[in-house]
């Protein structure tokens, strides 16, 4: 096939993959911190998307302010979520917490329908609506913004976890709560911050995909599942693994849909998941998992 077509698909795949990566990262951070898979992660994307759309509907304020308010809201949302779905159950096994996150997920979807209505909403875009024609490859500027914003967030995250004291405390908490506590780190606070950060990553994803897709109560469902696949493919609990897993999944999906079958597009993600679980259960970057367990 010609180069333009393939490049076109790479761009679409990278953009989708970036979103998967952001959501996957949210999964991994919470998993590392409290050893629980948060099945409401998809709703962490849906809620901020609705919040941003509503702010735009009712107040005429510039995009950066909308985004800032949304991100702050989601920071608080993450802490409240943690207080409700994790904190009261923190001394139990992982299963009650997982069930609690599923409960919150169902609650949020239905609450969104009651508050925002069943009709999908269109989020205004900060980028021009016209596509760019780069030598025969049509690129939506929003795709470029999505990819760049994801890279920027990852760079920030690297700096934050490796170079700041707060980031290091959070890492220590994730690695060994007992030890961290002995060293005087306030573990409960670090966990709350991790949830807030994970929720903010969701906010970024919601703001970025809102203008490309439409905002519906169901938008987080498949996104959450695909992101979950990404974390497994990349190696569960592994940060670079989640990111590369997400991007890999996004690109594979588009190419498989084009060259093999478009009807089974969603199935490819899960076929990949099963293959990885069968032949490389630790994922592509899975060495660290043994360390963590």
């Amino acid at each position: 096939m010609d180069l333009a077509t393939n490049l076109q698909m790479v761009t679409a795949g990278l953009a989708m993959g970036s979103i998967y990566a952001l959501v996957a990262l949210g999964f991994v951070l919470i998993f590392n911190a409290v050893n629980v898979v948060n099945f409401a992660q998809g709703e962490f994307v849906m809620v901020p998307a609705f919040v941003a759309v509503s702010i735009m509907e009712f107040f005429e304020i510039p995009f950066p302010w909308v985004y800032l308010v949304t991100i702050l809201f989601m920071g608080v949302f993450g802490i409240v979520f943690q207080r409700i779905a994790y904190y009261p159950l923190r001394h139990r096994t992982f299963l009650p917490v997982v069930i609690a996150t599923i409960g919150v997920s169902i609650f949020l979807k239905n609450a969104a329908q009651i508050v925002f209505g069943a009709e999908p909403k269109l989020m205004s875009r900060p980028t021009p609506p016209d596509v760019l024609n780069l030598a025969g490859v049509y690129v939506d500027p929003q795709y470029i913004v999505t990819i760049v914003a994801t890279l920027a967030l990852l760079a920030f995250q690297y700096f934050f976890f490796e170079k700041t004291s707060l980031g290091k405390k959070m890492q220590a908490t994730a690695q060994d709560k007992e030890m961290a506590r002995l060293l005087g780190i306030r573990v409960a606070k670090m966990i709350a911050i991790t949830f807030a950060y994970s929720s903010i990553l969701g906010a970024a994803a919601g703001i970025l995909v809102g203008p490309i897709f439409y905002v519906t109560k169901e938008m987080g469902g498949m996104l959450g599942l695909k992101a979950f696949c990404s974390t497994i493919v990349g190696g569960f609990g592994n940060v670079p693994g989640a990111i590369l897993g997400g991007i890999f999944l996004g690109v594979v999906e588009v190419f498989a849909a084009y060259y093999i079958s478009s009807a089974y597009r969603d199935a490819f993600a899960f076929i990949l998941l099963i293959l990885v679980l069968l032949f490389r259960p630790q994922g592509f970057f899975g060495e660290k998992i043994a360390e963590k367990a």
Partner: protein
Amino acid sequence: MIVRRLSGVVLIAIVALVASALPSGAQEIRLAFTPPITGASAAEGALQIKALDLALKQINAAGGVNGKKINLVKVDNQSTNPGALAALQKAVEQEKALALVGSVKSTQILAMSDAVKNYGVPMMIGGTNATLTKQGNPWLFRVRPDDSIAAAAMVKYIKEDTQFTKIGILHDSDAFGTGGADLVEQGAKAVGLTVARREKYTTKEKDFTAQLLSLKNAGAQIMVLYGTNPEDVAVIQRQYRQLGSPFKYIGSPSSQMKDALNLSREAAEGLIAVADFVPGQSEVNRKYADDYKKEYNEVYDTTSAWAYDGLNILVGAIKKGGEDRAKIREAILATQGYKGVLGTFSFTSNGDGLSEVSVVQIEKGAPKLLKIVNVGAK
């Protein structure tokens, strides 16, 4: 004391007996309507009742049928299939309805179909599943274009009104989309068009780059989109524009629905689609809009206007055939060239009233009529 109470009971019983004997009396014609009054489709039901009440008011104001008023009984179908069947039984057995306006849901009509056949009672229906009128039940009369007509009309439009010979098909992989795409493909081949490529997607998919590029690279000159969910259609319209509109676009009715256009906005401008009808496309249609506005002080709902046409056609048939179900049936089938809100009705022997749909172009966010395509009796 006891005697007095007893005599009261007897009196009530006598009144009840006399009353139950009365309705079959001569001064009115009893018809029934089985809309959803409760349950999931209650909102749709309320709109259908409004459309029907308007028709009823006009018919009775104009003197009813040969001096007799029409009495229309509404029996709740509870938005379910068993509810629809129960409503039919109640309408025919208790309410003694001569004929009915039934449901708009194909599955409910299927549930009622056998009983309708056993009673031998004419029922006007709004369900669009093409097979409903082709299962040997002579008592169902459809007053909306069925699903196969949209597909046939798209093919006919491409063949007769454009220069294109190579089409691409994109469709939802659900039963509705696949069925529609099958009809498009067969129809296209039958008239000598080439199907360059056929692609599908699953409901709620978000990225259609692969499908659209595949159609483009297969050399499709025009894409026929058979989508189910207006939300998916809106995403496709946007991404189609983002890929530089690599071919022309014609879509099934979902492509011109408000839900889709509200989301795709400027991306939908200039696209072509088929629609059951376009508000304001005919004089009858405009008059209905005015009357509805006067009666309810709101814009009429396009999806329930079939009930208005249904009752009018039914009453017209009663005028001709009298109060005899077999004669009413013949009179409905003999209805040719009747101008209704939805279009010009000419019944086929299967009981399909409409074999035309409108081809529209999206202009300033609303469908605008290009032409009415009649695909002829099947």
